[in-house]
């Protein structure tokens, strides 16, 4: 990787400087509505040190937001401790801000009032409040909008208000939870570069930035250090420094190489990352309970077919990163589709490339009815949940099974929300493959009409 003097970002000479926030073996469990508890974060050590932008990267549901909440004192770890300048965070007078994905502005307050509110909470006098807020609004490019209400602003401007509100209290650590993902591509790009500029010019007194994102490019573009989080339960997969000079060029070779590398890490959840530059990560604790359900990626069968056909067109093998570009997909929209196709054995991931398999080729070349058959075979072979649903339906005399039955089993492994999403995906796949149908009114799985189903016929005899 390129070795350049880094003019703006983390000055390397002080790597041993004292951490502002230090997490020691923090874990998080959530209680489910049933008696189960599921683990969202397994024991993790983490440090936020002055002078760097730290990006936490991971697929959705891996626990990034949970981690951010624990580090910012909003959520108490189930086990372990978070320290603020070596004091337990619950008792420390901490000075942090959060920029939220949904902006979290108060719609009944004007822009100025929104920015003033945190100062008001700190007992700043009205005059000083106004002065500081106006200055901050100026800085983020919102002068003239102070009397507007948030709903009158575009998404990008709302997030600017979010930034102004976060920065006006001069936080020591600025937390951001996917701050750009609710914005359109151009607006996000603009805001990112403005943020970098503020950081580089030291316009903001902030000492460290903690950025949560599921967008790989965003992390590589902004961060001095990247931590990749794996899921089920959340754990650090790799943690390394980004040694690229700012401003970074998306098209440059080192940049794309790094993106590719992270891709490889993300697409192979079960393999330990090849070279993690800084293996500072704590002991990797995988789940203690046996996990028998795979996590179904939330992709539609149609999407998979489209991807496989494109891949076939390109000779059966292509860089994922390039595929995303060709499809004009955000790279993280493509990932679930790739994952799903991989799960079903239609393609393999090799060195950041997607390579179509034999069954994938046959699938891509077939017409729709045949595609459904192939999909059905692959699904029954590779996906435990679908197999179980089908078996249960075939073995019951009335050929219906309540959804709750499977939800209860998933519940031991996934959060409530994730259970529902898993079920939704399973239903979509099962319907497509005509493995089963789902009666949404009664919340039951049913076997589809069995006229042309020879498979089920034999089981029916009883």
């Amino acid at each position, binding site marked *: 990787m390129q070795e350049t003097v880094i003019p703006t970002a983390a000055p390397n000479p002080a790597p041993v400087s004292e951490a502002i926030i230090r997490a020691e073996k923090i874990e998080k469990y959530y209680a489910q509505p049933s008696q189960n508890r599921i683990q969202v974060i397994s024991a993790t050590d983490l440090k936020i040190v002055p002078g760097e932008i730290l990006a936490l990267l991971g697929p959705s549901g891996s626990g990034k937001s949970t981690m951010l909440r624990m580090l910012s004192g*909003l959520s*108490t770890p189930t086990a372990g401790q978070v320290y603020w300048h070596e004091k337990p965070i*619950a008792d420390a007078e901490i000075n942090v801000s959060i920029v*939220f994905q949904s902006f979290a502005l108060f*719609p*009944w307050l004007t822009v100025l009032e929104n920015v003033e509110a945190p100062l*008001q*909470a700190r007992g700043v006098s009205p005059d000083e409040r106004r002065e500081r807020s106006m200055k901050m609004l100026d800085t983020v490019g919102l002068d003239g909008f102070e009397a507007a209400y948030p709903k009158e602003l575009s998404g990008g401007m709302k997030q600017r208000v979010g930034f102004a509100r976060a920065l006006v209290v001069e936080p020591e650590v600025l937390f951001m939870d996917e701050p750009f993902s609710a914005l359109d591509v151009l607006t996000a790009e603009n805001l990112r570069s403005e943020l970098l500029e503020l950081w580089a010019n030291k316009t903001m007194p902030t000492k460290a930035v903690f950025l949560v994102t599921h967008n790989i490019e965003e992390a590589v573009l902004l961060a001095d250090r990247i931590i990749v989080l794996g899921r089920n339960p959340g754990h650090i997969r790799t943690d390394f420094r980004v040694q690229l000079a700012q401003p970074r060029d998306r098209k440059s070779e080192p940049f794309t190489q790094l993106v590719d590398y992270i891709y490889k890490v993300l697409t192979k959840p079960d393999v330990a990352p090849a070279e993690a530059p800084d293996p500072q990560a704590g002991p990797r604790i995988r789940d203690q309970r046996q996990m028998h359900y795979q996590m179904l990626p939330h992709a539609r069968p149609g999407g998979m077919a489209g991807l496989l056909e494109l891949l076939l067109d390109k000779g059966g093998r292509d860089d994922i990163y390039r595929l995303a570009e060709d499809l004009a997909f955000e790279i993280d929209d493509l990932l679930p589709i790739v994952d799903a196709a991989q799960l079903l054995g239609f393609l393999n991931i090799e060195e950041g490339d997607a390579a179509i398999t034999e069954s994938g080729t046959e699938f891509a070349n077939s017409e729709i009815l045949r595609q459904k058959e192939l999909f059905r075979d692959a699904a029954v072979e590779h996906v435990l949940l679908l197999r179980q649903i089908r078996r249960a339906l075939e073995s019951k005399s009335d050929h219906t099974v309540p959804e709750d039955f499977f939800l209860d089993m998933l519940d031991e492994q996934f959060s409530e929300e994730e259970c529902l999403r898993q079920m939704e995906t399973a239903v979509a796949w099962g319907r497509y493959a005509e493995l089963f149908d789902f009666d949404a009114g009664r919340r039951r799985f049913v076997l589809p009409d069995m006229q042309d189903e020879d498979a089920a016929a034999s089981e029916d005899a009883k």
Partner: protein
Amino acid sequence: MNLQHPLARSPVTGRTRPFIIDLAVAACALAIFFAIIRTGVYWMGRPVTVVPISNAIGALPVYAFYSIVRMSIAYLLSLIFAITYGYVAAYNPRVEPWMVAVLDILQSIPVLSFLPPVVLAMVALVPGHQMGIEMGVILLIFTGQVWNLAFSFYSSLKSIPKEMVEASRVYRYSAWQRFWQLEMPYATIGLIWNSIVSVAGGWFALIACEMFTMGDRNFQLPGLGSYLQTATASGDIRALLSGIAAVILIVVATDQLIWRPLIAWSDKFKFEQVESADRIASPILELLRRSTLSAIPGRIFAHVEEPIYRRMARTKECQVVHPLDEGEIRGKSSAGLWVLAVAASGAVCWGAAQAIFMLKTVTWPDLRLLLEGAAATFLRVNVSLLISAAWTVPVGVAIGFNPKLARIVQPLAQILASVPATAFFPILLIGLIQIGGGLGIGSIALMLLGTQWYILFNVIAGAISIPSDLREVASLYRFTRWQRWTKLILPGIFPYLITGMVTASGGAWNASVFAEYFHMPGRTLETIGLGAQIDAATASGRFPILLLATILISLMVVTMNRLVWRRLYRLAETRYKLEG
């Protein structure tokens, strides 16, 4: 435009016609002052259980005034209590399920049956002053109004978006700031709409209970309700009509002067990402906004507020970030809490035992009569619901599909829903008797009068919400009329219809207590029903019967809610949700 200090109120601009308004506001202040003194003198006077009521129309304003004061006090008390209750319930996981259950049950109990014991208790509590009786009636209206307000506030608190709560935590808002900048604004719209329903229910009850007989004691308070009943008793139709006119006038004035401006004002609390096009306009609100005096409350509030913020900021409480899940993790329970819980449950057990003990005097024939009455009332309530639905659905849909008409009718339905049907009841009965009908029909008519508007209002809203492209598709594919109704319209309005019917059913049960028993000049009209038995028991002072009847009604209402309405609600939420 001068944007240098957009928050500073410019003292000169906008002063187009302030003087009249300012004068009016000042006059209002004086009037309020006088009213308080007047009420005080009356309340602190010797208790007169039967205040003679004059039929003169000139006396109406005074009576109206007394009724309005009762109403306002009851409403303000409800509001304060509801907010406190909702707050405690939402933030104390230990008592939360209990408090919600209490809300759920109390919401469904018809309060009118509590009138006699409540008044007796209050008279005993405040001896020697008129205030005792007054407090009894006010407390009664209060109990009818408070629960849905409390529930609205509670569920608003629970549904504040998580990230906004997190923002308030991470920026270290004090409880004070959180209340005024997050919780209250978020709950305002729900509180306003529920206030409209509550106050309507309050008038319904107030008209009914200003004058009643309990055992050998008569109670009669000066007010519109007593005026109407006295007018009926003496057969003075002219007085009756002017009384009704006064009631309607008050309702319309409340709607125009209070609710509409409030709804228009609360528009800014709408939790929406983009500005919506249609808003409710209120000329009154515009006038108020232009008055320079309207800035005064804000300024006074700011003066009060600033020191509070400064003081709060210095407390330890506001210097750390409080985790959102601290309640779940530190499950510490203090000894004091346990003692309190034990004491409370002990008291509850004792009370319940006493009440059940009281029931021992109820005889089998009494019980049979009560059960028959329950069946009759049950039937009547549901018949009135069906009739309401039968006419409001087609009419409401027709209105809803015609936007111009809907804009006129919807606010009208809202006003009609607020007119207390009890005011019309006497004249309605007089008419019915003349054409040979009886109280059986009369009671259903009363329930209809009181409740159908809620259904109409909601059906119109439902019809409006059906996306016009769906309607176009229906006509494109030449749906038959039957198909149109079963495939498009009924599913589309279903959630709204259910909402309306739930509100209406609560109102109908409440009405039953009043509707089945009526004093006319010279005779008492009575039909078989639980409500009639409650009234009869009140009149003869038989508390065990009263208690049992109330228990029966509550049981029926709660069961209906559990078995029917809640299920339909869930069905409406899951299956018939039109994403538009």
